[in-house]
C-alpha cells in the first residue's frame, strides 16, 4: 500500500504563492482596481498595492485603516462613504457606490467601491472585503458625452428657433412681397443649416473613434484618388452649400498626376469643409497646394485671413469647439476633417502664418 505524500517541497509552494501574488498585483494594476480586507476581530486592515496607487501613494506609505480612506475622500462624498461602509458592517450587508478620492497632489479620482461582509458561520467576527476601481476615465467620457449632447441640442436649437420664428412672420397675410421674400430667405437658409448639421452630426458619430477606418459600421474603402480633381470639385460646389456667396478667390496649384490614398467622396468632403472654413473665417485669398515628400503627399490649404486665436487652438478639431464668429453656428466641419484624415491613415494639422493667415496641412500616403 502506498501512502499519498505531498511531495511538493516548501520552497515550491512558496515560489508558487509568490508568483500568484505577483500575478494578482499585475492584474489589479491592469484593471486599475485596488482591494482591501478588514478583519474586524483583530482590527487589522490590509490594502493591496494598487489601492495605494489609486490613492496617489506608494505601497506601505501609511498604515491602512478605514479612516485613512475617509480622510482621502472628497469632502462632499466623505459622509456618504463613511455612513455606507459603517452600515454595511453593522447590518452585514454588501454595498456599492461611486465617490471621489483626492490624491496628495490634489488630483481628484472618481472611484467605484464595492464591499461585502463575509462571516464564517462559526460565530467568529466577520471580515469585510472590498474593491475600489478607478473609473475616472469613464467619468470623463461620460462628461464629454453630456457636453456633446448639450452642444448638439443648442446647435440644433438655434436654426429650429429661426425656422419657427420665420413661420410666424410668414403667417401674416398682410406682409409686403419684399418682406415675404426676406422671411422665406431666412427659412431656406436655416433649414439648409439644420439639415447640414444633422447630417454632420450623424456622420461624426458614425466615424468610430476607436476604429478610424470604419464609418456606419462599414470599412471605408481606400484607394488612389486624383487629388486635383477632388479639390476642384470641392471648390466649384462651395457657394451653394451654405446658401451664401462670399467673395473669395481660390487658387489651386496641384499637379494632375498626384494621387493620394483616400476614399473619393469623403476626400472631396475634407476639402469642402476646409474651404468652407477658409471662406467664412479666413479669406479672401485662398490657395491649395500639394507637394510630394518621401512616400507622402502634403497638401496645404492656406488663407490670408486673421488666423485662429491661440485660445482656440487646443480644441480646434474637437466637435463644437467654441471658435465660431457670431451667428455662424457651431463647428463640426473640422472635427469631421480630423476623423476622415485618420480614416485615410493620414493626419491634419494647423499653423498660423505671421503676420496673418492660416494653413491647414494634410498629410496623406502617396499612391
Amino acid at each position: 500500500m502506498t501512502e499519498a505524500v505531498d511531495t511538493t517541497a516548501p520552497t515550491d509552494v512558496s515560489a508558487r504563492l509568490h508568483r500568484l501574488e505577483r500575478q494578482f498585483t499585475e492584474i489589479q494594476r491592469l484593471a486599475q482596481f485596488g482591494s482591501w480586507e478588514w478583519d474586524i476581530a483583530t482590527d487589522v486592515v490590509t490594502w493591496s498595492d494598487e489601492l495605494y496607487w489609486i490613492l496617489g501613494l506608494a505601497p506601505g506609505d501609511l498604515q491602512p485603516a478605514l479612516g485613512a480612506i475617509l480622510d482621502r475622500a472628497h469632502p462632499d462624498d466623505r459622509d456618504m462613504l463613511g455612513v455606507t461602509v459603517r452600515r454595511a458592517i453593522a447590518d452585514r450587508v454588501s454595498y456599492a457606490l461611486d465617490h471621489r478620492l483626492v490624491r496628495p497632489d490634489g488630483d481628484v479620482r472618481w472611484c467605484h467601491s464595492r464591499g461585502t461582509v463575509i462571516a464564517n458561520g462559526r460565530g467568529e467576527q466577520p471580515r469585510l472585503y472590498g474593491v475600489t476601481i478607478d473609473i475616472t476615465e469613464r467619468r470623463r467620457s461620460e462628461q464629454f458625452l453630456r457636453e456633446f449632447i448639450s452642444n448638439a441640442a443648442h446647435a440644433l436649437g438655434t436654426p429650429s428657433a429661426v425656422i419657427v420664428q420665420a413661420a410666424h412672420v410668414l403667417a401674416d397675410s398682410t406682409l409686403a412681397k419684399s418682406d415675404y421674400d426676406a422671411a422665406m430667405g431666412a427659412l431656406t437658409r436655416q433649414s439648409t443649416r439644420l439639415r447640414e448639421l444633422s447630417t454632420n452630426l450623424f456622420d461624426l458619430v458614425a466615424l468610430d473613434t476607436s476604429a478610424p477606418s470604419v464609418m456606419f459600421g462599414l470599412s471605408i474603402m481606400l484607394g488612389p484618388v486624383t487629388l486635383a480633381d477632388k479639390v476642384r470639385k470641392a471648390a466649384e460646389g462651395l457657394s451653394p452649400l451654405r446658401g451664401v456667396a462670399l467673395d473669395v478667390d481660390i487658387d489651386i496649384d496641384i499637379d494632375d498626376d498626384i494621387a493620394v490614398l483616400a476614399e473619393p467622396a469623403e476626400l472631396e468632403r475634407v476639402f469642402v469643409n476646409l474651404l468652407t472654413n477658409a471662406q467664412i473665417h479666413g479669406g479672401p485669398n485662398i490657395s491649395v497646394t500639394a507637394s510630394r515628400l518621401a512616400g507622402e503627399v502634403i497638401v496645404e490649404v492656406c488663407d490670408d485671413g486673421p488666423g485662429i486665436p491661440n485660445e482656440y487652438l487646443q480644441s480646434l478639431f474637437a466637435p463644437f469647439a467654441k471658435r465660431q464668429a457670431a451667428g455662424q453656428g457651431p463647428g463640426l466641419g473640422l472635427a469631421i476633417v480630423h476623423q476622415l484624415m485618420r480614416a485615410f491613415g493620414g493626419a491634419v494639422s494647423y499653423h498660423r502664418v505671421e503676420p496673418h493667415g492660416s494653413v491647414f496641412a494634410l498629410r496623406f500616403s502617396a499612391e
Partner: protein
Amino acid sequence: MATILIVEDEEDLRLLLRLSLSSESYTFLEAATGAEAAVLWSSADLILLDLRLPDIDGLDLLRRLGNKGVSVIAVSAHSAGHLGAAAIEAGCVGYLAKPFTTAELLETVRAALPAAS
C-alpha cells in the same frame, strides 16, 4: 418715432424681428455681440436683448450697462419660467421666450415703450 436696438447674434433672427415689427414705424439698430451692443446702448429707446450672446450673458450686460433711460425686453431661447423672473429682477420690463408670435412681440414692445413715443 422710437428707436429699437436688437441685440441678437443670429442674423436671420434680427431680420425676422425687424420684419415682425415692420407694421410700426420704428427705427432699428442692430448688434450681434455684447461689445457691439455696448456702443449703441444709450442710443435706443427700447432694447430687445437676447440672453445668450457669444461674448457675454445678456443679463450680465444689462447689469453692467444699466437701464436708465431705456426699456429692456429679454429674449430667450428657453421658456424656463425662472429665466423670466431673473430678467425682471435684473431690470427688464418684459420677457419673451422664442418662438413668439408677431402679435405677442408687438404687444410687448408697445407696452414697454413710453406712451409719448
